[in-house]
């Protein structure tokens, strides 16, 4: 039982990070019908740039959480600028091109970001200073750290804020209108290009937050961390129904829990034949199963076979 609870806690932590990243994918997909392949790398840039700022301020005598907050703000600014630029340079000129073209530029952007990060921060794994309260608590035989609580809480609050933004504000209404039909939204006085840019900027800010949280959770950051994280977050978005914000959250948390439980139990279930290093297989396996049996995801609307 304690393993079960423990893995649920770990899964929730991981899942809320996946959810934050998945929101970035799903927002862009909802509006442009495009998989922003470079999103995972934006998370990585967020983690590493916050790390640089945090290291600069580590000896300043400021309290730990404040330093992390400043690091987060800096990372958010960097990522927002990055998201804006990526959309302008790599996606906007190709908006009416065949579907494959923006996917290839997205791959190109990922490679460029990864290599720039490698040139800037080097190949090594950076350890992240533990500035957030890391005390552990015990509940029913399972332990959780305060960092984990902070991660889940921050992610939940952010997602609630995003929901409010999209569902209750004028900007949110413009976003939904653009997602529905950019041309008609344009006739109603919505500047679709501005909305699309803003979508990328908001998604990138979420990515920066996810990057900081992931670094805080694992205590390490490196230039290659974005790829697998992005892939899993995309899986989460598909699992929940891509284009659907609530779906991304549900999909993220669900995927985190499935993965954690899978890693915890696979050894016992298969009599030790398969070990926990198969953890990454779960995400892909879930993805394939979902796409085969319910291509529109758990909460997605029916999509046509070919759009």
């Amino acid at each position, binding site marked *: 039982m304690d393993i079960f609870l423990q893995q649920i806690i770990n899964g929730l932590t991981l899942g809320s990070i996946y959810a934050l990243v998945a929101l970035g994918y799903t927002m862009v997909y909802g509006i442009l019908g495009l998989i922003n392949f470079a999103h995972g790398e934006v998370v990585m840039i967020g983690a590493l740039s916050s790390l640089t700022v945090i290291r600069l301020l580590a000896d300043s005598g400021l309290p730990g959480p404040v330093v992390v907050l400043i690091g987060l703000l800096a990372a958010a600014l960097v990522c927002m600028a990055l998201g804006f630029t990526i959309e302008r*340079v*790599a996606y906007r000129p190709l908006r009416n091109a*065949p579907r494959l073209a923006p996917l290839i530029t997205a791959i*190109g952007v990922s490679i460029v970001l990864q290599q720039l990060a490698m*040139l800037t921060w080097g190949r090594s794994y950076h350890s992240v200073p533990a500035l957030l309260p890391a005390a552990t608590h015990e509940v029913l035989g399972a332990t959780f750290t305060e960092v984990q609580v902070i991660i889940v809480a921050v992610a939940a609050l952010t997602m609630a804020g995003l929901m409010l933004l999209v569902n209750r504000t004028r900007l949110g209404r413009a976003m939904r209108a653009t997602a529905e039909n950019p041309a008609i939204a344009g006739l109603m006085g919505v500047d679709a290009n501005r909305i699309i840019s803003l979508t990328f900027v908001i998604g990138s800010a979420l990515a920066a937050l996810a990057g900081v949280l992931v670094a805080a959770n694992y205590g390490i950051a490196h230039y290659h961390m974005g790829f697998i994280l992005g892939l899993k977050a995309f*899986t989460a978005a*598909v699992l929940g129904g891509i284009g659907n914000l609530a779906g991304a959250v549900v999909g993220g948390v669900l995927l985190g829990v499935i993965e954690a439980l899978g890693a915890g139990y696979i050894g016992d279930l298969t009599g030790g034949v398969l070990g926990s290093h198969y953890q990454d297989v779960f995400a892909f*396996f879930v993805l394939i199963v979902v796409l085969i049996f319910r*291509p529109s995801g758990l909460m997605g609307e029916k999509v046509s076979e070919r759009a």
Partner: protein
Amino acid sequence: MTAKHRSWLGMALIGTALALAPIVVGASLGNAWVRVLDFAALYIMLALGLNIVVGFAGLLDLGYIAFYAVGAYLYALLASPHFGIHWPVWAVLPLGALVAGIFGVLLGAPTLRLRGDYLAIVTLGFGEIIRIFLNNLNTPVNITNGPKGIARIDAISLFGQPLSKSVDFLGITFSGVMLYYYLFVVLALGIVFVGIRLQDSRIGRAWVAIREDEVAAKACGINTRNVKLLAFAMGATFGGVSGGLFAGFQEFVSPESFGLMESIMVLCMVVLGGMGHIPGVILGGLMLTVLPEAFRHGAGPMQQAVFGKVLLDPEALRMLLFGLALIAVMLYRPAGLWPEPRHRRELAK
């Protein structure tokens, strides 16, 4: 001179150039560069296989390297001291082609209902799953030898002559890499021939029809499911053969050679060259194997000469330029460097 004569002359010229290339390159630049040509031929075979799936049938496959891995590991397992089995290349290569083809159908069957970019992600996931299994199937039974890979694989040998040993012929010493070059070029030409014949066949036209408009193709009486599956199986078969050749050539395989980056590299050869256009794909394959290699050799010394020291890691710089080139080509030539004429017409209007 009639058109037919001219095309025969052209072929004779290309044939002579291909036959002389390794001798000239070997004498002027050294055997390392002949090795690069070997890889170019190998990658061209892979790219032509992927071209069937992506270029003809329009199915974006980001896990193509998995079939290459299947072919390579099959060769490694059946012709190495790892299990003590030493099957001849004649037996292993066709078997590799068959098994990779079956994997192609296994992947294709459940995923064909998906739309373009979903298909891309599922195939990507499939590629990663294969790699994770290759990495971890060393326990409890050691099948793949894990991350360490399988070494001391038998070299490919034809008619009792291992291609890894050099041969003297007509007063010229043909080193191992040169012999491999001839084998690979002959096989690549075979694949080009099959590709061209496929393209002009009923099946090839069905593939193009599906790529252009699946609903319309269906309405014309094409069994889209079977035809798409055939594209997957055919592409996978070519991948499996190339993988077997790779294993025999390298005499070593490890999961590291079959990462996502390799899949992307092969895809880029197809896309940069010109999707669905065989000469374009060959150009793409040649460029993306030779140019990065030239860059690897040239970038360090050049920085040394200009700045007096090596400022940027040549490897990172190479990848950086590769990424930028991908973006630039897509922005300015979305149909590739040497696109199919039919494509060009469509894009022009």
